[in-house]
């Protein structure tokens, strides 16, 4: 208010006495009531009434229709069957509900009174007499309970009430922070000598079977019991790798002995940005693209980041082959897979 007042007194005419009365808008009051067509023309009112009735009747038909549709068009398990059932239920329910809605609003707008009435606000506090009676009643209650005299009782009550929330809070917080062992982010299921198995069918893969340009999505070759355990899904989520067979001449990054085998390289499939599975591999450019934020890694060059928000290259899994020619892991990843976290140190 003061903002609008200050400039008006400054730029207004020198004679400020008039302005003092006009710096607030006058209450325009309730606008003049204009009769609607339905107020003046009985024919129009009858027509409106008819429309509202028709809308309600439509809604009744829709309700009946939805019941008929529910029993007559059952989803029989086939795609067209499910679709027909959903469609008929949806259409009839829409008619049923929209009929009521449109009718109610049309009724209110065209036939019910549209005069505006002013109802002044009541004062919020109760009258002083009522408040005095209430205070007296409260004081009487405190005295009757004798809480001020019986100190031990008061302490016991407060103590029990204060302690009770622990019975709920401790288990709740304890289950939320289920596992505070952050060191498991550093390790995956991969061990020296563990075979690589195809995802999802779990077959070990021979190095000789891969042709240049091949890509295989791999996971640790573990027993069926492990795969059926509850922890498998999170262990698999950490351990999945992408196996790429390149022409050995195309590999530009320095490969230490035992890190790749005959042009076959294995990199973690978990993006170092926010952990999406990176799997869009272009065999012509050897680029691996993350579908979430377009981080691009160069598989031929140590999975270095060539584009996008990722900060680190994908960790490489050292691989070789066993006596039978199957691909095996030489070790776990040398660094934690996936995105950064507080305890990761970098």
């Amino acid at each position, binding site marked *: 208010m003061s903002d609008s007042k200050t400039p008006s007194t400054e730029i207004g005419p020198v004679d400020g006495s008039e302005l003092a009365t006009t710096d607030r808008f006058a209450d325009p009051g309730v606008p003049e009531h204009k009769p*609607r067509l*339905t107020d003046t023309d009985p024919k129009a009112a009858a027509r409106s009434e008819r429309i509202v009735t028709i809308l309600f009747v439509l809604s009744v038909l829709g309700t009946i229709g939805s019941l008929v549709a529910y029993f007559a068009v059952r989803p029989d398990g086939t795609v067209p069957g499910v679709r027909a059932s959903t469609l008929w239920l949806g259409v009839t329910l829409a008619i049923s509900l929209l009929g009521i809605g449109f009718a109610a609003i049309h009724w209110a707008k065209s036939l019910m009174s549209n005069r505006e009435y002013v109802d002044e606000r009541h004062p919020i506090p109760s009258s002083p007499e009522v408040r005095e009676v209430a205070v007296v009643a409260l004081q009487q209650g405190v005295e009757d309970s004798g809480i001020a005299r019986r100190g031990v009782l008061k302490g016991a009550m407060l103590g029990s009430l204060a302690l009770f929330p622990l019975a709920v809070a401790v288990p709740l917080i304890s289950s939320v922070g289920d596992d505070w062992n952050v060191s498991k982010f550093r390790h995956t299921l991969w061990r020296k000598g563990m075979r690589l198995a195809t995802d999802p069918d779990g077959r070990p893969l021979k190095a000789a079977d891969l042709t240049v340009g091949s890509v295989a999505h791999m996971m640790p070759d573990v027993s069926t019991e492990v795969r059926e355990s509850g922890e498998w899904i999170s262990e698999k989520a950490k351990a999945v790798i992408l196996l790429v067979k390149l022409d050995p001449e195309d590999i530009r990054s320095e490969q230490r002995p035992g890190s790749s085998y005959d042009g076959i390289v294995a990199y973690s499939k978990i993006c170092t940005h926010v952990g999406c599975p990176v799997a*869009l591999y272009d065999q012509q450019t050897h680029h691996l693209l993350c579908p979430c934020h377009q981080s691009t890694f160069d598989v031929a060059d140590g999975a270095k980041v060539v584009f996008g928000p990722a900060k680190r290259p994908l960790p490489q899994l050292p691989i070789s082959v066993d006596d039978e020619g199957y691909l095996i892991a030489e070790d776990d990843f040398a660094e934690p897979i996936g995105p950064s976290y507080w305890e990761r140190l970098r």
Partner: protein
Amino acid sequence: MKALAARRHHRAAPVVLLLMALLAVGGVYAAFAPSPAQAATASTADIETGKKLFQANCATCHGPSAEGTDIAPSLVGVGAAAVDFQVSTGRMPMAMDGPQAPAKPPQMNEEQTAALAAYVASLGAGPAIPTDDQVDPTQGDAAEGMALFRTNCAMCHNAVGAGGALSSGKAAPSLMNTSDRNIFQAMETGPGPMPVFNDAVITAEGKRDIIAFLTEQDKGSAGGNPLGGLGPVAEGLWAWVLGLAVMIGGAVWIGAKSS
């Protein structure tokens, strides 16, 4: 000879002669007629036709004897499957250079494609064109196919095979209208930017399962119009544009005074 001559009036002589004549004709026919097994493999004539077609249509980029040049890869050892995929989908011969060869109406008819495939297959061993049995979706398991598709294909080709964009102007094409044979061949040979999924990575049965899963998608979605199967982009567009317009319209109608 004398004994033979003496028996030439024997009453069994005509029958023996007839049998001998039939055997002779049958033997000669068997020796010269092409057997069905031979017809399936490429004849030298096919390879010759293919070579001529190759030199007229492909040699500019792939080199006169398909050994590859700076702008196009060698075709020695890519196999008949790669040629059949590239030529029958119209990707090759390429009309113009670009990030990747787009599918277009095929330039070669079936015989010409077969001849070209026979010629390239004769240059070096590679994946053969799959048989009808190998790509028969009715023999595949769509549920197994979905698991394989989700892990190996869905990141580029979309969860239902609707296709998607890649980087550098490349794109994974929609698989909705791709023939079963071409889907198999693409996995087998890895055309363009697509990596190779040979039978060691995805077994031949697995490939058939994937084809079965994709065939299942033709039946449509139980949830009504899938809006191209493109997911939140298409659905969001409709929800915002259409849904919001209807809501604003409703609010205006409710708030407007009746005349």
